[in-house]
Each structure stands twice: as C-alpha cells, then as structure tokens.
C-alpha cells in the first residue's frame, strides 16, 4: 500500500465513522458536530483528487457556513438540544422503510458505478491549480448561470435585510442618516 492509499483509507474511515455517528447519535448536537468531520473528510477527498479549490470551498461553504447555520438553528430552537431523539411506536416500521430505501439506493449507486463509462485517460500533466480553469469557465462558458446565481443571492440578501428592518421602514423615511444618528456609537460633542 502506498502513501496515497493509506491517506485515502484514513479519510474514508473518518467519513464513514462520523457519518454513522450523524445517523445513529441520539443527541442532536453530537450529530451536528459529527457532520463536521464528514464534511472535512470529503474536503480531503477533493484535495486528493487535485481539485484544491473545491476542497477549500467545501470547508468554506459547508463547514464554515452551512454547518454553523445548522448548529445555530439547533441551538436557538428552544428545548431541542436537551431532547433525546427517540422513535415512537411506529419506530420498527420506520426502520424497515429506512432499510429498504437504503438498499435500493445502494443498489442503484453500484449499478450506476459499474455501468457508467468512466473516462480513464491518464492525466499527463498535473495542473498547477484548478482555480484558473474554474475562473475562466465561470466567466465564459457558464456566465449566465453564474450571474443568475449571483442575482439570486442578492435577492436573498435584500430580503433578509427587509425582514430585519421592517419596523424602521414603516415609521421613518429609512434615510440611513437618521438611523445612524440614533445610534450610540456616534460621538457626542
């Protein structure tokens, strides 16, 4: 076994173990934090596949963004953190359903894996960095998708600001000056 294989199995072990913890843990906070290791292991895989940008994006977006969001959601939802996740009387039936769905998905995936035509061209030159290529294709080939996504995010941002500022918009002209003069950080002369 060479070094790469060792690292691969290490990451695989981390992903599988922490993934199992996410599913099986009775404590929802433990599950949320175990997700972190899963996401990290995935980032490790991306890095092994020489897509460094994707790996770092994985950490940035999933670990730094979405996971924090999940944890905040869990923590701010009242009385959820102390509660143990339990299955009710129909739990056994749920187990059956879950097992069935898992088996179906597993079969489907392995079918796909064996039947799809993988491009197995050996890489003749290891690219210095994937970031240049990603940048070019984002701003040439996929410019429309990129812009639409940007506009979508902008809309979401404005919406969030609107929700947060609801009362102030109603009772004032929402001139930024007025709001800032009310604020205490202004140095009183």
């Amino acid at each position, binding site marked *: 076994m060479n070094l790469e294989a060792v690292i691969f199995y290490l990451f695989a072990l981390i992903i599988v173990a922490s993934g199992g913890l996410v599913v099986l843990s009775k404590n929802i906070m433990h599950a949320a934090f175990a997700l972190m290791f899963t996401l990290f292991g995935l980032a490790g895989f991306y890095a092994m596949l020489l897509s460094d940008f994707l790996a770092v994006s994985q950490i940035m977006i999933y670990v730094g963004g979405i996971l924090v969001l999940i944890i905040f959601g869990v923590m701010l939802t009242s009385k959820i953190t102390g509660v143990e996740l339990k299955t009710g009387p129909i739990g056994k039936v749920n187990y059956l359903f879950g097992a069935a769905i898992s088996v179906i998905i597993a079969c489907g995936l392995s079918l796909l894996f064996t039947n799809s035509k993988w491009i197995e061209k050996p890489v003749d030159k290891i690219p210095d960095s994937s970031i240049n290529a990603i940048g070019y294709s984002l701003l040439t080939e996929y410019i429309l998708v990129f812009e639409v996504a940007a506009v979508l995010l902008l809309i979401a941002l404005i919406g969030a600001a609107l929700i947060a500022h609801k009362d102030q918009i109603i009772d004032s002209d929402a001139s930024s000056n007025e709001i800032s003069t009310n604020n205490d950080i202004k*140095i009183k002369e």
Partner: protein
Amino acid sequence: MINYLKNIIKGFSTILVGMKVTFINLFRPNVTVQYPNVHPLVRAGSDKMPDNARNKLNVIIPKCTGCKSCEKACPVNCITIETTKVASIDTEKPLMEDGKKRVFWLSQFDIDFAKCCFCGLCTIACPTSAIVHSTDFEYSCYDRNELLVHFSPFNKEQVAEKKRILAEEVKQKAEKALADKQAAEKAAQEQNITDSKIKSSDDQTSANQNIQNNSN
C-alpha cells in the same frame, strides 16, 4: 453622509490620540518598586512617604501632653494611656518640647497594632501632633504580643518610683495640711478671744487643700 464620515474620522483620530498617550507612557520610567529587594524608602529618599500613607504609628513622647484625646478618638479603643501627675518635689523638672512645664508623666502609653485599623483619627485628634504615622510599614511578626507597643519612656520600676514620689508628696502635703490645721486649731485655741471671722476663713482654706490632695 457628511456626519457619517466626520464620525468615522473622529472615531479614528481619537483612537490615535489614545494610542499616543499609551505610547508615551510606554517609555516613561516606572513608578513601582521591587519591594522586598528595594525598599521604597531607598528609592523615594528616606523619611519620604506618600502623603496619607497610613503606616505604623509613632508617639513623640516629649510632645505628648497626656491629654488622652487620641484615646477617645480611636474607634477601636486600641490606645491605653495612664498618666501620673508630676510631683512638685520631684528632682526631675521635665519640660515639654515647646519649653512649657510638663504636667503629667506618661506612665503608660500602649498601642495595640493588632487592633489598630490605621484610620489615622488619633493623629487628627492630637492637639500637639505627638502621635503621627511613621515611615515604617513592615510589622508582621510571629507573636501577636509583639504588636502591643509600649511608648512610655518608663519601665515598671520607674513608674513605681514616680508613683511613690507622688504619693510621698501627697502624704507630705496631707501631713503639712494636717500640721497647718493643727497649728491653726492651736492658734485658735490660743487666741480664743479674737475675732470669729478670721477663724472661720482659716478653716475653709485648709479644707480646700485637703480636697485637692485627695483628688491627686
């Protein structure tokens, strides 16, 4: 908008002012002393202490009149004063520091520093500034009794001696008064015929003397 920018600039410049202050202080000589290694007195110059430093008390006995104001002013009653009147027949003729005649010997002047809270009220009460804070602030010791400090210049024998002299004087005075009285009575008996007014006034003076002697 103008306000907003002004605000930012002002906030920033005030931070710079603060940083300037701390930067200047960074290079100023320190004011603290490495205490057990360097005694503060060495650094500040001997007998120089910060104003209002409430150190151990010191009583300057030549200044003390024995008025007991300090004893009364003390909130925790840690001063104990006992005075003995200076007998007129005493061979020592003590003077106060300012040259006045001393009226009382301080046969006992104890301050219990275990009780003292170093409030300094006694130093304010003292009319002659005889009780003052010294420059000594190291008074930890292994035995609590060491904290009971005797300021009286006399030891027990001397106190007893002074008391004896005083008692002697009292006795002498009493004897003298008695002798005077007897002499007066004698004279009265001898001059039985003389004016009654003179006799009654003689009686009164001797009685007064008696009372005075007793009280001392």
